[in-house]
């Protein structure tokens, strides 16, 4: 059931649908389940998808989407996108899901640095940084959190000092996800130490490799994977033209990227949550736990939650299409989905029962000795969901401050 967005957008949907149907290589949807395990940052069920990414059909698909400027279509035409608004981008995502084919994503960092550049970058910077992302030449990781500054991001200590026509950055960042594939980092550093809290910082793009003074130390997660790292920046350099939004404006740049999340993935991520729940229902059927009264109650509750996400996404899309401001519930979407994800991970192992704790066997001599199945991975990886991108506690405080205007 789709939302009535008027004839123009309906026509856009039909055109998009036809185009995609023409472009999709046959068999792509069957290569793997592209939509399972994409709900968590970094994803669970990654091995299955990793195999998919190296499949020739995926390469074919990527080439076709690139050619048609459909890799980041919400970015401007001059950088290789189509300049679509968030409503069209959401419709595009829905149509991709309908065919069960993957969007081409260049890491989670791309969306964040993309927003920063679109809101605060010059056209030259947009071209210089966004085009290589689309082409797959640049992949970004985020240099925000530090060992001493996570939730209190405004107080980061990594220093940025001007040296001629370069900015020299020294300090330490942590929890950099997707560091393995990254060759670029967007970072917050303190360039104006004498200024007030929210005017100390600068948002800068840094080449991310050992040649640029970056020493990466992977950190193992509870899932067994080494999916994030701490990074020591020792005189890491970037041209001054890599500063986005101007010196001392870094906090504002960073905050505005977080705001754009309200019109980004949240408009279609409910599709992945529904997909995941359907898989879990299948698992409950398969092992007979679907007859358990408590599991049934929890499945019903989970379904209700996904439908709330669906309706809220549709309502946001309708408001955007009508030029109306977003509703207040959009401030709660991260809290809603991340807490849901933890609940679902618990439910998944409840359904799996004792046998569900047995890990998949590891091949002799394999590098990774702690393999997980999809539900174990969800259960563990889900613990991160309520911590990254603003902890649940911070989300509640944001709601209390910005929506409820409670006393401070």
């Amino acid at each position, binding site marked *: 059931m789709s939302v009535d967005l008027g004839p123009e957008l309906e026509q856009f949907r039909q055109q998009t649908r036809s185009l995609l149907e023409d472009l999709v290589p046959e068999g792509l949807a069957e290569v793997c389940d592209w939509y399972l395990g994409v709900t968590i940052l970094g994803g669970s069920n990654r091995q299955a998808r990793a195999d998919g990414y190296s499949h020739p059909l995926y390469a074919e698909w990527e080439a076709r989407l690139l050619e048609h400027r459909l890799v980041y279509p919400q970015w401007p035409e001059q950088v290789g996108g189509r300049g679509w608004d968030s409503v069209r981008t959401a419709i595009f995502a829905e149509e991709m899901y309908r065919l069960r084919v993957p969007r081409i994503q260049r890491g989670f960092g791309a969306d964040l640095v993309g927003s920063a550049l679109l809101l605060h970058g010059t056209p030259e910077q947009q071209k210089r940084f966004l085009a290589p992302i689309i082409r797959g030449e640049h992949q970004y990781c985020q240099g925000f959190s530090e060992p001493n500054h996570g939730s209190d991001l405004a107080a980061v200590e990594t220093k940025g000092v001007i040296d001629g026509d370069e900015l020299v950055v020294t300090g330490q960042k942590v929890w950099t996800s997707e560091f393995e594939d990254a060759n670029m980092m967007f970072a917050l550093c303190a360039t104006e130490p004498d200024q007030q809290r929210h005017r100390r910082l600068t948002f800068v793009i840094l080449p991310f490799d050992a040649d640029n003074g970056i020493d990466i130390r992977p950190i193992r997660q509870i899932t067994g994977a080494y999916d994030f790292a701490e990074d020591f920046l020792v005189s890491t350099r970037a041209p001054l033209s890599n500063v986005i939004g101007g010196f001392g404006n870094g906090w504002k740049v960073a905050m505005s990227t977080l705001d754009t999340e309200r019109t980004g993935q949240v408009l279609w991520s409910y599709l992945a949550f529904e997909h995941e729940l359907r898989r879990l229902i299948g698992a409950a059927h398969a092992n007979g736990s679907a007859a358990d*009264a408590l599991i049934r109650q929890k499945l019903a509750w989970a379904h209700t939650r996904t439908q709330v996400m669906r309706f809220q996404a549709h309502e946001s899309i309708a408001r955007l299409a009508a030029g109306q401001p977003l509703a207040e519930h959009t401030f709660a979407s991260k809290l809603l989905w991340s807490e849901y994800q933890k609940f679902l991970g618990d439910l998944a192992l409840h359904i799996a029962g004792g046998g569900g704790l047995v890990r998949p066997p590891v091949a002799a001599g394999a590098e990774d000795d702690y393999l997980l199945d999809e539900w174990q991975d969800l259960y563990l990886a889900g613990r991160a969901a309520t911590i990254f991108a603003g902890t649940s506690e911070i989300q509640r405080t944001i709601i209390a401050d910005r929506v409820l205007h409670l*006393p401070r």
Partner: protein
Amino acid sequence: MSISVLPSPEQIELRGTVRRLLGDPREAVDRLTANHQAHRRVWDALSEIGFFGILAPQEYGGFDGSLADVAGSLVELGRAMPPIPVLTSLLTIHTLTHSSADDAKARWLPPLIQGDRSAAVVVDGACLSAAEDPSSIAATPRGDGSWSLQGRSGPALFAGTVDSLLVQARRPDGTPALLVVDTADDALGLSPIPTLDGSRPFAAVTFDAAPAALVASGEEAERLLLRLGQLGAFLLAAEATGGADRCFDICREFVTVREQFGRPIGAFQALRHRLSDLFVEIEASTSLVSYGAAVHSDDADAFTAATLMAKSHCVDTFTRAADEAIQMQGGIGFTWENEAHHHLKRAKTADVLFGSAPAHREHLAALLLSE
């Protein structure tokens, strides 16, 4: 099929009008103990704006409107909690409308639609019957096309304060029947039954060869009863959303004003975070009600699922909000004079009427697991 998810300007306006005519929620408690005339005034104000005709067909003086037209108003009714039989009258009008009993419709619908008459539904979902003492009403045909009712009901919502009753009964062959009766008839006895919730009076009804008009029997009656139960659950979910929102406002106002330890208590993180969590749940309630209203006229299966989700979530949330309204106010939240306990008791009642939250979730699970 596509649905409209944003309220139209007319729907927004109607909701605003209803909200205003219901009066300031802060005076709701005074209104509960007010005399009958005050309640009559609210009822008449709703009649005057044609509220009871919105879901009814033009043929009988209605406006052929949609559930989306009235959903927002039901939320407002839950917020202001006037002790008037709006919900049950709407259910009666809706059920009659969808029946094939033309004579009964022609006689009973117009005055209900005008608001000249009010109705309650003596059906299982609306009765607080003890498990060991269910409603038992027998419907027997007389020779002349009319019917006779015999038996007694459990405590039925608003049954003692209306002039018309839509009654669920059993025919001699055991199959269900739906009939309408006039409460003024001597053959009916109405006994007010005290329940936890003082804002919604219940009464047990006894029928002693009471004359009744048949609305539906057999399969049609089953269908209509299912529909009635579903719509009843949905309307309660909408009311529950308004009640939860009112409780939220009670909390928010109180923690902003009440000071302890040298600051408003709303500055303490524990309360801020609990209110943020409650905000999330109430927004979810609002979304589920909007979604149900949007799909009601076009997709019966989607509406069934929407009602199961809305009734379970919205009533659970209402209970939680009412609990918080008492807890956050501290000692005074526990007083009779305070508004909070009315909402707590309304939430508990809403939980029991037209199917509990676990029952709805079980039904939803059955649907999900059958695909």
